[in-house]
């Protein structure tokens, strides 16, 4: 596996009689931004759940070169807690000494002013910022992001890509799964998930 941060080989998965993944191979080197696109139902979220260890593939292997962060497609937050309380919970989960890095991410995403707000009163976009912050706050070497910019306004969307570029410069790898190839020119590699297989595509502005 060498220096690879992620190595996926021959991953298969099916839901009942319907095969979704028919042999996925993927390698992520440090400092790369990779996108996976595909139509609805192509198996993007299934693949990402397998990569995030939420789902065991029926065949194949996934190996990691370090700790990963995972931002699921659906908001996985607790409506009863505030933004700050989420950070406290995950600081304990990740075993972090402080919240300095989390606060930097919140600054970039424009989430700081909502620290004391309960999640139940936040807008969808602001909840997604928190969803993303929780995936990034332990500074993982590999980021697995499922439709990470859903609900973002234009400014936050731009900041997200700036942050992704900074992560790449620091040797982090980012895997973004989306149903549309927006901003393909920002990616180092773009793959198309179709028929249960990943096909290479040349990143080009759409």
């Amino acid at each position, binding site marked *: 596996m060498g220096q690879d941060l992620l190595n996926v080989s021959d991953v*298969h*998965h*099916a839901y*009942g*009689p*319907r*095969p979704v993944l*028919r042999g996925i191979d993927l390698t992520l080197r440090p400092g790369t931004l990779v996108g996976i696109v595909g139509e609805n139902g192509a198996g993007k979220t299934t693949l990402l759940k397998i990569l*995030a*260890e*939420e*789902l*065991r593939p*029926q*065949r194949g292997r996934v190996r990691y070169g370090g700790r990963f962060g*995972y931002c*699921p497609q*659906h908001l*996985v*937050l*607790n*409506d*009863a*807690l505030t933004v700050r*309380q989420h950070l*406290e*919970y*995950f*600081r*304990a*989960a*990740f*075993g972090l000494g402080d919240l300095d890095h989390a606060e930097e991410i919140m600054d970039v995403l424009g989430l700081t002013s909502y620290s004391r707000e*309960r999640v139940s009163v936040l807008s969808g976009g602001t909840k997604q910022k928190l969803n993303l912050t*929780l995936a990034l706050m*332990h500074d993982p070497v590999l980021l697995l992001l499922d439709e990470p910019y859903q609900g973002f306004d234009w400014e936050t969307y731009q900041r997200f890509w700036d942050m992704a570029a900074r992560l790449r410069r620091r040797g982090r790898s980012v895997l973004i799964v989306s149903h549309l190839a927006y901003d393909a020119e920002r990616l180092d590699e773009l793959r198309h998930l179709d028929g249960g297989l990943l096909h290479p595509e040349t990143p080009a502005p759409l």
Partner: protein
Amino acid sequence: MNHAELYLTATRLTFVEHLRNRLAMALIAVFIPTWISLAYFVFENRPVPFRLQATGEVLHPPGNEFTQIAGAVNALTLIVGFMMFAATFTSGTFDRRLAMAGYPRVHLLLAKLTALTLVSAAVAVYATAVTCVFWSPRRLLLFTAALLCASLTYGGFGILFGSLLRREVEGMFAIVMTSCLDVGLQNPVHSSGANGDLVQYLPCYGALQAGTAVGFSAASVPTCFARQLAWFLCAITAGLMVFRRSTRRLPPPSRTGFLRRRPRGVPRPTPPVPAAPPDPAAAPGAD
């Protein structure tokens, strides 16, 4: 972060979650005194026969006072069961995310257990205080303990249903129906079979037996408490096991061993292909 900090963080935030359940807080404040008060005023005070299983003795408590005990058990089991169900159900995926991020599940489980115990103790003391407005149970502390044990048992059911069921309405219905059947069948005021043999298998049988015994007699009650604690241990063990299973990383395939089948659509694994001999024409430097 050490174990104590992990436990305290999880416990504090679990409490915050419970305290922000406004419906549960309103039910505690209003439903418990309303139920206990209405039972006292609406039901007749005519003595009803109630057989203590532990001693075989038949007590004849006033119908309305006995119904207050049954009502308190009913109200507490509904509220605590609902609180634990709501917390477990709504934070199920969040708890899994925490566990996958590295939060030790044992600390999350202990936090749930601590919250359940303290919430149950608080509502049991409250219900006892409301009951004391109308009459005084003979052994107050044991009376509170009986209510506490009933609440703990249904809190365990709440955690179990919250981890097991997929729709909110299913869990609510399960708790309401279980509690109503459980308590209703044991009340001799409106159940002719309340002193029969079958009721002893109901989840709150021990608590209702103990509550009535310590409320109106000097009868010995350890077996009643032991029976209720056994129900609690079964409920909480099942609840915590299902919770633990639902928050684990990478669930294994549904079939294992020789029964495991290759899913349809997934091709049969091919044997490794031996490496082809090197092509001399492709060697570096070859012309």
